[in-house]
């Protein structure tokens, strides 16, 4: 990508490849993972995991002052055979996919009333997606949802977030042996909403997990998609796209932890930014543990800055504890839609607005075409089109 050479003022694209005896990915968190919020100190903002996040806009989610006083309307459209239960936090499935790694995830775990467990029985192949619609109606809510997909089952789950509110949640994906799960999480909040969520995927032996994260809305959105493998042969693909407008903070922090041999991961996130104080943060951590021989991993982040005044922080980290791997790589680039491109398109009669839309549409289409689920691809292109109509 030619634009890779253009680094806008105020952005960083630092990267590192560490080959270490001890995990710096794990140790640079200020506290070890825990379900108990009391195990995490209140962040002051200089910690590695908080340094990009505007704490003052988190409405107290990080310091214990946020109270569960809000309403989030949840609708789950489950095809035949899929069960939906409300359970307490001592249910064995709750928290099985992963443990909260920061204070807000732990706060969410400590504060939710009932967890929702959506189960797809083993060997069941769904022909219709599971649709989850979460509509914020103001105030603060905490949640925990588990999607439990049985061995050799196949499912597509679409989660839509709309409306206003302050939301902290954990979302677990238990992908059974040989199962195939595709999850699309769309953050289409009002521009006043705050959303902080940790996604934990536990990918079974020979299972495949595909996550598509789409973030358009919100005042602050901070998502933490994490993947662990329960057995060899697992595959994870994490796709993301975000469109960060003036004043928005959208942060995606990914971790793929290769702890078992012969697993694959592929991470590709793309974001477009425009307007004053639009701020996108992408952290891509990949850890290849000593046991994880035969790992094949690649992570990529691309950003397209459409106007002055926007800021991108993109930090890929790859940590390798064994040399016996198939491949490991990462790439990060932030480019600017520049005056020369605009001039070229306009000199062919294309009005300025249409020129911008053409470029953004093309930028995202490259990623969307990789998703490989035609329904979802069409839906996302339509979403992008609507976002372009509304904001470019």
């Amino acid at each position, binding site marked *: 990508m030619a634009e890779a050479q253009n680094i806008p003022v105020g952005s960083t694209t630092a990267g590192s490849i560490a080959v270490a005896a001890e995990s710096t990915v794990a140790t640079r968190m200020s506290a070890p993972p825990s379900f108990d919020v009391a195990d995490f100190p209140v962040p002051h903002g200089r910690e590695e995991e908080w340094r990009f996040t505007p704490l003052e806009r988190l409405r107290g989610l990080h310091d214990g002052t946020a109270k569960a006083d809000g309403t989030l309307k949840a609708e789950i459209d489950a095809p035949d055979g899929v069960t939906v239960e409300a359970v307490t936090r001592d249910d064995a499935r709750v928290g099985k996919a992963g443990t909260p790694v920061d204070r807000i995830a732990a706060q969410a775990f400590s504060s939710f009333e009932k967890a929702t467990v959506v189960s797809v029985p083993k060997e069941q192949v769904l022909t219709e997606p599971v649709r989850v619609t979460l509509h914020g109606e103001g105030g603060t809510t905490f949640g925990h949802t588990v999607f439990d997909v049985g061995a050799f089952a196949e499912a597509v789950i679409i989660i839509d977030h709309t409306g206003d509110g302050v939301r902290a949640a954990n979302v677990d994906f238990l992908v059974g042996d040989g199962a195939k799960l595709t999850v699309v999480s769309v953050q289409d909040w009002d521009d006043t909403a705050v959303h902080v969520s940790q996604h934990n995927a536990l990918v079974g032996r020979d299972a495949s997990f595909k996550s598509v994260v789409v973030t358009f809305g919100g005042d602050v959105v901070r998502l933490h998609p994490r993947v662990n493998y329960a057995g060899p042969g697992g595959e994870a693909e994490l796709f993301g796209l975000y469109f960060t407008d003036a004043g928005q903070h959208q942060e995606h922090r990914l971790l793929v932890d290769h702890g078992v041999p012969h697993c694959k991961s592929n991470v590709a996130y793309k974001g477009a930014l425009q307007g004053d104080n639009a701020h996108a943060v992408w952290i891509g951590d990949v850890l290849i543990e000593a046991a994880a021989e035969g790992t094949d991993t690649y992570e990529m982040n691309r950003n397209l800055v459409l106007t002055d005044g926007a800021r991108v922080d993109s930090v890929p980290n790859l940590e390798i504890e064994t040399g016996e791997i198939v491949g490991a790589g990462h790439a990060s680039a932030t480019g600017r839609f520049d005056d020369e491109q605009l001039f070229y398109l306009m000199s062919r009669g294309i009005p300025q607005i249409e020129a911008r839309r053409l*470029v953004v549409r093309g930028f995202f289409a490259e990623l969307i075409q990789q998703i490989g689920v035609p329904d979802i691809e069409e839906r996302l292109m339509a979403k992008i089109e609507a976002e372009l109509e509304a904001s470019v």
Partner: protein
Amino acid sequence: MATLEIRDLHVTVEADNATKEILKGVDLTVKQGETHAIMGPNGSGKSTLAYSIAGHPKYTITRGTVTLDGEDVLEMSVDERARAGMFLAMQYPVEVPGVSVSNFLRTSATAMRGEAPKLRTWVKEVKTAMEDLQMDPAFAERNVNEGFSGGEKKRHEILQLELLKPKIAILDETDSGLDVDALRQVSEGVNRVHASGEVGTLLITHYTRILRYIKPDFVHVFANGRIAESGGAELADKLEAEGYEAYTKGGASA
């Protein structure tokens, strides 16, 4: 009949915190159906003339007028100029990652014609134009100018010229960096458009080589920010024999 009139055009550019005057009073009239060659040494301001007529933001017009059929071109935005019938084939076409050639051409044709061209006739139109320029059909699926060779970039510019059918086409050093085969194919494209009688062509070049393929009605020697001499095709022969030395002596040729 469409007429481009350039009168006393003065243009400056900001460089190293200083304002530098590049064009120092250009007068030129190009009519539909005519081919004008503008020839001159490097740095004489030929490309500045092309880009300032097209409306590139880098250049400031300090004096003079440019009109197309009496309409003030300098008042128009870049896209309005194109829709009014101006076309600039660039010396260094810009890469636009993520936008395919076919998507770009259709978007452009839609803007120029005021409505989306009918898909079936459009596909045929593009296919024919690409075949004429000996372009591989796979080309249409590549991103605009991304990874194109020099020859591919220029063919792509002439492809647009053929599809967009402007009234006035400015070709900025379209011949530079082309091998003989590519030069011939590109020239044939220009001649096809010319043969329609609908376009006035302003061919900007450093070399006389392209004039073996494209016959100009008028040749202008550009030196030191203005037209130093005008004549017929025979002026090109003189330049071929004598070079630009006579025009650059004593003038600021840098």
